[in-house]
């Protein structure tokens, strides 16, 4: 071997070709389905805005929590868990200071975004209309969450099997999803 790699060139070409084909299929499936699996770090950026024409959630839970933002090490926030969420008209934006101005990253979807195991940490939710089905708001004493310590997250929680928010805007600091499908995803970068 001229390069001193001591490899079987035919086997190298065969294996390389096969894995590139497999990778191409996986990327194609991601692009067709718009699937971004789990933990892709939209989370942790802090202070992004999620706007939607309508958010339909199942298995809604809200409780107080202490979390960090890009500006503060710890701040009071609300944790929102949704077993399943359907978001119509999603528009997720984040403003970032750059040299000479501000860059705004905007992620949009042309279809209905469907996510499961959605977890949000937020400092604000606004909606033209919010409807809850079977809303249950309760105060608790002691270690309600069963995590071995008594903190703010044990004191109060809101639960509802179904929730619908119209023209909603959420100021989020973390977004997690076990799985999320974003059909017709678009990413736009604007400079101001």
């Amino acid at each position, binding site marked *: 071997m001229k390069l001193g790699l001591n*490899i079987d060139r035919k086997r190298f070409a065969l294996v390389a070709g096969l894995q590139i084909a497999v990778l191409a299929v996986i990327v194609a499936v991601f692009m067709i389905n718009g699937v971004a699996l789990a933990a892709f*770090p939209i989370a942790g950026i802090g202070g992004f805005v999620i706007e939607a024409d309508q958010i339909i959630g199942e298995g809604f839970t809200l409780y107080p929590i202490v979390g960090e933002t890009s500006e503060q090490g710890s701040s009071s926030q609300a944790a929102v868990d949704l077993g399943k969420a359907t978001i119509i008209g999603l528009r997720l934006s984040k403003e970032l200071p750059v040299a000479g101005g501000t860059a705004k990253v905007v992620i949009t979807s042309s279809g209905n975004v469907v996510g499961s195991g959605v*977890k949000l940490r937020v400092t604000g939710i606004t909606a033209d209309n919010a409807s809850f089905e079977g809303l249950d708001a309760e105060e608790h004493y002691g270690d309600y969450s069963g995590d071995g310590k008594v903190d703010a997250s044990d004191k109060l929680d809101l639960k509802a099997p179904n929730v619908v928010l119209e023209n909603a805007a959420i100021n989020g600091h973390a977004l997690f999803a076990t799985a999320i499908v974003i059909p017709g995803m678009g990413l736009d970068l604007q400079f101001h």
Partner: protein
Amino acid sequence: MLNSSRPVVAGILSLLSGIFILGVGLMLMSLSFMPGSLSYLGLLEGMVMCTLALLLLAYPQFSGILGAFIIVLAIFSIIGTLGGLVLGTIFGMAGGTLAVAWKGPVTEESMVLSSDEDQSVLEA
């Protein structure tokens, strides 16, 4: 000759891949153990990739199977860490392919055969 007794280039590339995947996994560590998050996979994938790379260097006789595992893990790392920001996947795929294609330790006999092959190619 480089790679004469063990797949050094494949091992180094695989180790780099593991470091990238583990690095992204560590960056996401604060989120890793949140319920519903799969980013803990990055830590696991990075550690397994580094281990496979070291095993590849320590036990070159298993380069085929270790290389195959490295390729699968490199592709799988897209989930959880986005392939160590893509670089982990690229290095892992290259390292795994080199490991699978490695011809084994160079002996005097194989060097003679190799020179014969080169000669026949030149004559052709």
